[in-house]
């Protein structure tokens, strides 16, 4: 016994089922829901109020209630008397967004209420309209009569979102996803309630079998959805995700291929440039301006700089020392000379005989002179004459002279040392300066610059080339792709296994219903998986799109009804059993034909539980005659329906 879908998919890609489920859910892919009968949607009441303005004036107060399953009609003697408006207002309430409601009528409206049942639950949509904008609520009415508000809205968008959310959930519908757009630029689009509600409305020119959104594949998907074909939804979800991932992967590999091509081109270019740079570098080979030579010169400068600096410093010190010693020697020399001069001068002046007082000019008396030589008292001031004034002077002179000689010798030696140092310092600083200039010259020489540039070019290009040799990373496909592919394949397998004879059964039912609804000479019907209908009429093969508008309408109704009936029969499907048919008189060939169709629809509805058909038609008398007044809202003559 093999495993379920999820188990099989997970096993194929080597994941645990729980992981696979999470990854698939993130991609919007879920397993098929369990089969169950479709829900039944039945309109119970359509009511609205407002004021007519313009050519026709007056209050609007339309209220049509107590509706049940069966065939109902809004009709007027003449066209443009409001029958379409009733259907449009009903669609507005169900969809949350109007379909073809005339703008002036929308302006006239002030209040709308639509009540409906889904199986045994009662719901009502009620909203006020102010300047075209709906404001109201969606609510559930319990059997006891109490109201539970489910949602509320104050804008067009809010109303649409509220109804879509409610209907998709309540009617068990899944959004239809598809890839749309130009080749390679497709994007995932989602068709929700606004598109799916096309399955209950039959108006316009009946171009498509189901719905009215012109998009390839959508009618087929809607058909699969509404008939409840097992795994159809999962196949669709996985198919969309797969196409999206494949597109991504393709884009990535295209871009990887493009960059690989670019990288190869760059590699070739760099190789070429490298050869040129190497050739240029070789041409410099014998020049002196090499980096090695430069390094040697720099080393020489570095070696000589501290020597020159040291010598300069030593010279400064030696010169300062010599200057100081010379100063001391000079001081000593001055002292020697002063002392010698003073000794001689003192001896000389002391040897002179005083003649007069320098103060008063009085002549020095002979008595004073005598006293001076006898008593050693000064002949001028009578102070005692120091006889030993010059004693020791020659000793002192000797000492100072020796000191001076030593100081002079020291100063001379210091000066000689400083002079020698000066020579050395000068030589050293010259040597340093020469080396420095040589270095500067070498570093700035044109040859060196060019060579250096060539060296750098070669190094740079070699680096760039090495980098290019790393192979470009291959495009990595999303890890989800394998999973999604497996999910798609498995779902498709289950879909093919599960669809069985449903299509055959549908074909037979559509044929029967089509014949009953008066499609002339219909002999065979074949529904394709792409929701085109191949027909055989009067022995000739034809298609849905080639028959008349009236026949197309009949075939559409036959198809939708067949979905409902086969669904009921098999206990599956999702069509809610409501058909809203807006049909201008032109599609009805004659009152007799119309009567026949209505009669047959009544019969079909009686056979089909829960089927409700609401028709808008311009042939009032034929319709009321056939359906009975209690099933109709009719306007006679020029009257309006509301």
């Amino acid at each position, binding site marked *: 016994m093999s495993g379920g879908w999820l188990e099989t998919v997970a096993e194929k890609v080597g994941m645990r089922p729980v992981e696979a489920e999470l990854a698939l859910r993130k991609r919007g892919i879920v397993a098929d829901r369990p089969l169950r009968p479709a829900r039944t949607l039945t309109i119970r009441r359509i009511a609205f109020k407002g004021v007519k303005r313009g050519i026709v004036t007056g209050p609007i107060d339309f209220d049509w209630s107590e509706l049940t399953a069966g065939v109902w009609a809004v009709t007027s003697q003449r066209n443009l008397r409001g029958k379409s408006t009733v259907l449009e207002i009903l669609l507005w309430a169900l969809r949350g967004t109007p379909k073809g409601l005339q703008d002036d009528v929308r302006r006239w409206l002030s209040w709308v209420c639509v009540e409906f049942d889904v199986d045994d639950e009662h719901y009502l949509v009620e909203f006020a309209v102010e300047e075209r904008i709906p404001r109201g609520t969606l609510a559930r009415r319990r059997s006891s009569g109490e109201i539970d508000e489910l949602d509320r809205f104050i804008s067009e968008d809010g109303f649409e979102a509220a109804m879509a959310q409610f209907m998709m959930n309540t009617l068990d519908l899944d959004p239809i996803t598809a890839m749309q757009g130009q080749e390679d630029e497709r994007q995932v689009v989602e068709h929700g309630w606004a598109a799916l509600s096309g399955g209950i409305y039959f108006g316009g020119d009946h171009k498509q079998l189901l719905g009215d959104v012109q998009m390839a594949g959508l009618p087929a998907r809607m058909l699969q959805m509404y008939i409840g074909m097992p795994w159809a939804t999962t196949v669709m979800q996985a198919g969309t995700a797969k196409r999206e991932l494949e597109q991504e992967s393709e884009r990535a590999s295209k871009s990887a291929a493009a960059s690989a091509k670019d990288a190869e081109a760059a590699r070739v270019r760099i190789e070429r440039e490298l050869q040129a740079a190497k050739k240029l570098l070789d041409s410099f080979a014998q020049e002196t301006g090499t980096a090695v030579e430069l390094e040697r010169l720099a080393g020489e400068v570095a070696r000589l700089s501290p020597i020159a600096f040291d010598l300069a410093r030593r010279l400064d010190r030696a010169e300062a020392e010599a200057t100081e010693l010379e*100063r001391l020697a*000079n*001081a000593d*020399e*001055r002292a020697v*000379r*002063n002392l*010698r*001069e*003073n000794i*001689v*001068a*003192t*001896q*000389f*002046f002391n040897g*002179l*005989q*005083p*003649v*007069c*007082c*320098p*103060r008063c000019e009085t002549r020095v008396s002979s008595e004073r002179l005598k006293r001076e030589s006898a008593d050693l008292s000064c002949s*001028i001031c009578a102070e005692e004459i120091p006889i030993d004034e010059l004693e020791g002077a020659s000793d002192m002179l000797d000492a100072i002279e020796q000191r001076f000689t030593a100081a002079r010798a020291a100063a001379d030696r210091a000066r000689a040392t400083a002079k020698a140092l000066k020579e050395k310092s000068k030589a050293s600083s010259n040597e340093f300066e020469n080396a420095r200039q040589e270095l500067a010259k070498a570093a700035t020489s044109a040859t060196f610059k060019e060579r250096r540039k060539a060296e750098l070019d070669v190094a740079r290009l070699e680096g760039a080339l090495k980098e290019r040799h790393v192979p470009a990373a291959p495009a990595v496909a999303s890890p989800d792709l394998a999973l999604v592919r497996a999910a798609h394949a498995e779902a498709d397998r289950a879909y093919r296994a599960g669809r069985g004879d449903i299509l055959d059964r549908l074909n037979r039912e559509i044929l029967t219903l089509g014949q009953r609804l008066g499609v002339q000479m219909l002999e065979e019907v074949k529904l394709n998986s792409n929701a085109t209908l191949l027909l055989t009429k009067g022995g000739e093969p034809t298609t849905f799109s080639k028959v008349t508008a009236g026949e197309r309408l009949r075939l559409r109704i036959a198809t939708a009804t067949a979905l409902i009936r086969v669904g009921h029969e098999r206990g599956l499907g999702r069509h809610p059993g409501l058909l809203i048919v807006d049909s201008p008189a032109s599609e009805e060939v004659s009152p007799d034909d119309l009567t026949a169709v209505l009669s047959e629809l009544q019969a079909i509805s009686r056979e089909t539980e829960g089927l409700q058909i609401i028709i808008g038609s311009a042939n009032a008398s034929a319709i009321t005659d056939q359906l009975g007044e209690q099933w109709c809202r009719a306007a006679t003559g020029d009257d309006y329906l509301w």
Partner: protein
Amino acid sequence: MAEIAVASERQTAIRLLACIQAAGDRSNAGRWGDDVVCVLHSQSRLQALDFWMRNPDYLANELITEFEISGERDLLTIAQSIFDDREPELRRFPMVRYLFGAFEPLDNALAILRAADLVRVKRDGVPGGKIREHIYLLTIAGEDALERIAAAAPELGWYRERAHIVARVAGAQGGKALKDRQYLQAEYAGTQLSHVIEPVTSQVLARLTGVLGGLGK
């Protein structure tokens, strides 16, 4: 310099004696006494002469200036020898700048000369009133003493030789005119009142080198 070199009173006495002898006016000296050899007018003139005696660098500068006026080459030779003998270092006795130029009281040194009657000082002016000027008279004994001093030691002989050079530079100019000349020296004039007059050795040496270099061409 650690300390300012100060001459002894006796050295100053010899310097002044040499100045008076070299710059004194010998004509009509006998008017002041039989034994008067020459006469030197005014203390300011004596001070100015002494300034050059004590500042060999300023003197050398004057010699160069004189050379530029007269073209006498021996003036440069003398200037050169001043530097060769390192006189600015060995023989400079700085002087304080006073209100009217370099000034130092000379009284003590003059007293030594006066006591032995080598020099006589006359004060010209109204008795009891303001002294107009001092007049220095050199006696025969004074001139004889200078001769003996110079013979006693070559160092002291230098004073007599130098005084003749200073007298040559000063010419017949009075004290005021000499001080004005000394003012011309930027360094001298730039010295603030009551401050020691700064040496100009390096500038003058550079000037001399320039002048000699100009001659060499």
